[in-house]
């Protein structure tokens, strides 16, 4: 394809012609693969998992380096005013201890109440923990790379959370790394409710790190700034009572919220069993890319 006019050489003319054919074949194959990955997303699970085994550990190793370097700087910074920090931390610790005693009492009371009601608690099975080492920084979709894979027991469709709140769910799993569909992705719809009042709402990502929250029932806008959204457990994928986001802005029929678990600052992410195991089998087929 180098020059427009290959001259009188029959061989050069054929070469040009066949290279055109090869490129057109490439376009056709690409379109077929694309249609296949849109219609039957599961067909490429193995290939995508294998690719994650290459990119995941690289991102993990580089993440170690950057974390160490930034840790050196913040570590040095912590020494700067250690005395005042120490005093503040001591004050916080005393306050925390007081709150902890209260919480323990409430926990005990809760257990007794549940025993009288004969409620069975769902087990929150932790499958694996990993670090978030990368993200889809060159795509309109919001994915993150998790440094744990099928070798740790992770399967596609499992929910991922951090100590702060919900992170998302697994959509691709390699042996040593996996890809997480974040709650801020547009295609991730989480059944949720308002912590204050328990009004059922739907949380859907906006693709820019924030979340759209809409009430299920049409009517008055129930949200206030600062409200916390938690999972409801409806649908059976995400466990209930996991905090998702805090509302920062109201609009006409809903609100915009910011996820409590910021993937950029999440040190450890926990992969759990789907709340109702049956949900794991059908969810990825309908929603995962």
């Amino acid at each position, binding site marked *: 394809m180098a020059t427009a006019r290959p001259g009188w050489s029959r061989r050069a003319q054929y070469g040009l012609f066949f290279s055109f054919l*090869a490129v057109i074949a490439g376009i056709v194959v690409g379109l077929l693969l694309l249609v*296949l990955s849109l219609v039957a997303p599961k067909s490429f699970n193995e290939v995508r998992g294998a690719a994650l085994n290459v990119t995941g550990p690289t991102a993990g190793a580089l993440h170690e380096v950057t974390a160490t370097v930034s840790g050196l700087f913040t570590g040095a910074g912590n020494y700067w005013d250690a005395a005042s920090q120490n005093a503040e931390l001591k004050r916080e610790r005393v306050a925390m201890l007081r709150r902890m005693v209260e919480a323990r009492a409430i926990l005990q009371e809760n257990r007794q109440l549940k025993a009288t009601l004969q409620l069975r608690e769902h087990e929150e099975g932790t499958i694996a923990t990993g670090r978030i080492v990368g993200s889809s920084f060159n795509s309109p979709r919001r994915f993150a790379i998790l440094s744990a894979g099928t070798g740790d027991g992770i399967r596609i469709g499992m929910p991922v959370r951090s100590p702060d709140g919900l992170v998302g769910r697994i959509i691709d799993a390699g042996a040593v790394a996996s890809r997480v569909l974040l709650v801020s992705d547009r295609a991730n719809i989480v059944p949720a409710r308002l912590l204050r009042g328990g009004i059922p709402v739907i949380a859907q990502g906006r693709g820019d790190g924030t979340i759209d929250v809409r009430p299920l029932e049409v009517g008055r806008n129930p949200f206030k700034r600062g409200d916390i959204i938690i999972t409801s457990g409806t649908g059976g994928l995400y466990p209930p009572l996991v905090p998702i986001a805090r509302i920062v802005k109201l609009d006409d029929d809903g609100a915009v919220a910011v996820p409590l678990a910021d993937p950029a600052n999440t040190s450890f992410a926990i992969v759990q069993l789907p709340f109702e195991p049956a949900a794991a089998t059908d969810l990825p087929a309908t929603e995962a890319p």
Partner: protein
Amino acid sequence: MVRAALTGRTRIGREPAPYAPYVPAVTVIAASFLAALPIVTNTGWYPDFGYLALISWRLLRADPWPPWWAAPLGLINDLFTGYPIGFSVALWSATMLVLDLIDRRTMWRDYWTEWALAVVLLSIDQSLQWRLAATMGAELPYWSMVPPIVISICVFPVSAWVVSRVDAWRLRR
């Protein structure tokens, strides 16, 4: 090359490296592999590095690689970046075809023509990603694609410069 004669360096015995034909494809794969950088952001504003490298090479030279190589290179990009498989395969092959057709029409080129072509190609790339995300259930407003388009357009001259340096190195110019 009168000016080259004035530099004083002898050009005898300075032939391209034996691996020179493979350098462009390897740099494109390396650019795709930048997707493994440990960057965690809430916005997808970084450029599509693989595609930037591809069009930088193709706009610099008409024959950086046999044209059918665009398809496997695109597959590698899809796998590393997590795009739906087949997207880069089709887009990169189509880019090779379109740029060849354009080469037949244009009589001359300068930096501004190349940048204009890159603007069109990068906008098409990002718009198709946006359209594909919508097909897969992630409908976003189109203005959310404006920052990544502008950023990749601004990064193109840097990418073109890096590619031209690599080209000079591989040909021992």
